[in-house]
């Protein structure tokens, strides 16, 4: 989309998910993200889940205001998605992950 070059499919994804405690929305986001990653980039990702209540300094460091917020640390450039991450298509587009189903 929009002229960007998709990252090398072999790249490893480093993802950081900021959630606010154990609210239902947080749990939904974690669950949804894990599902998407397992489906499309199995074994090629590291997911770090940060509770902004526990580690507010990390949220501040990354300039995270909204929760949940998903941060793609690598591959560069950094990208972020706010929301409960239920829309799989948007997540994939946002993270620039080639959907596994389409690839085949």
């Amino acid at each position, binding site marked *: 989309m929009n002229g960007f070059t998709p990252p090398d499919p072999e790249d490893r994804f480093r993802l950081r998910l*900021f959630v*606010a405690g154990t609210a239902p*929305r947080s749990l939904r*986001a974690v669950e949804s993200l894990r599902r998407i990653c397992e489906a499309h980039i199995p074994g090629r990702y590291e997911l770090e889940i940060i509770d*902004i*209540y526990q580690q*507010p*300094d990390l*949220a*501040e460091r990354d*300039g*995270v*205001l*909204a*929760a*949940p*917020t998903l941060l793609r640390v690598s591959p560069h450039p*950094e*990208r*972020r*998605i*706010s*929301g*409960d*991450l*239920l*829309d799989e298509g*948007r*997540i994939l587009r*946002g993270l620039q992950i080639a959907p596994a189903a389409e690839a085949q």
Partner: protein
Amino acid sequence: MLVLRVAQAALHPSKASSRHGSASEARLARPCIRSQVAPETSGTSSIVPDPQAQLTLPKALTGIAGFDDLTFGGLPAGRPSLICGSAGCGKTLFATTFLVNGATRYGEPGVFMSFEERAEDLAANVASLGYDLDGLVAAGRLAIDHVRVERSEIEESGDYDLEGLFIRLGFAVDSVGAKRVVLDTLETLFAGFNDPALLRAELRRLFGWIKDRGLTAIITGERGEGQLTRQGLEEYVSDCVVLLDNRVEDQITTRRLRVVKYRGSAHGTNEYPFLIDHAGISVLPVTSADLDYAVPGGVLPTGIAGLDAMLGPGGFHRGSSILISGEAGTGKSMLSASIVDAACRRGERCLIFAFEESGDQIIRNARSLGLDLTRHRDRGLLRFETARPSLHGLETHLARMHRDLDQFRPDIVVIDPISALRGSASTLQATLLRMIDLIKSRGITAVFTTLRGDGSVGQDDDIGVSSLMDAWIKLENLEANGERTRTLYVIKARGMSHSNQIREYLLSSGGIRLIDAYIGPAGVLTGTARHVQEAQERAAAEERRRETERTLRDVVRRRFAIERQIEELRAGLEAAEDEEERLRSEERLREARSETERQELTARRSAAE
């Protein structure tokens, strides 16, 4: 002066204690909320103090001169307030001042959450005002948090909240134990997130959270079309809304501030001009026009013996406004410099607002009259505030004056000249009225000069300021016999008897000297004509004296002559008496001899018989 200040203090119930204070206390006492005493009537509405509201609604002082007065104590404590205005109108500075004053003066640490400027920029921007943000941060009295919001980075998918912002704010608040919070500018969030409905809900929650935590907060917002802020923040922050405005009229910018609403409290409703300069923000609560100020007692000698003699009490009444009118070159500035010099010699404080000359120039010019103003300035008794009239709008001039008066607390103010102020007739009139009130309500003696001979202000209209003045000295160049002569007369002086004479005066190295007027058969003579007339009179007198001497000499001579004659006659008389005596004695001798002879004859005849 002390009497006057104390009397002033007594006017204000809030400062009643200073009535019993020492001299220095009375002098140092901050100006109190004048608007409480003198409700505004120049505008359409008036400030009505509401003691009940003041008691019930806790307020947080902003430390911004004037603002705390017009809101009767500052912003609502423990609630969010909205400061809105267009770009560059001073929102961030207002908010920073609020925080810095809280941390330094009121013992309330603060958090500055900036969505626009970085902490270093923020610190650099206010460093010129003497605010040491870095120092406050290091001392743990201030936390600055720059929140970067960039739209392009954030995508949205589904439901989310701004818990990150809350936590971050809470974290910063807890780190310094903050009582004050500034969010500058929240609306940047609307650029960073796509879902306004969600954002609004979160903002509502944020303001609720601020109230729950008991934080006094300032939220800034950009001025929007048709509403106070672009995103309608005023809907959420409903306790106190302050609008800052930056208007350009005739290429001159005037900053104005208005408290749009203040729930549960009385407040000034007008637009108040405010200043941003090296001294920070100061708001001018346009006090007004009630004539209930205390009149200070005492007389202010002018330092010009001749002029004092023309005024019944030997000078002007203290606290009065004095107008010196005269065309260019009549010596208005020098007359006021003389008054200032005399006051400074007595140890009084003088403030000169000069619109046409620099302070150094005035000092130099005064030196030609033998007045050493530098000495007074070095002692801190004299201050010059010079600015071109076109530099600021009238409101700003007034606001500056207001601030300078409160800072310097002078006994005498000189405004030289008022005719230099520009503006429409009605604005000028209103400005002058307020200027006079501003000065009079502080019991300060004011000396105004104007170029217009009839005491008007403008060049092409006739605003009569003279009726606002208590005393009016008119300087005039009389032109006659091919020369100009400086003359002075007192047109009016309220509350005193004064000379009605036209007097000639000289600007000499010994100061201003008034000369007795020559009133001759042909009217008042001045200048060379006076000299000529005086010379003629001197000649005539000399002639008379000589004439008298001559006559006297004649008389004396005549007297001597008569006396001589008397001497001669007396000598004649004596001679005659001598002659007479001699003749008489001869006669007696002769008679005696003839008797003897007759007897001898008789005897002889008898013998012959």
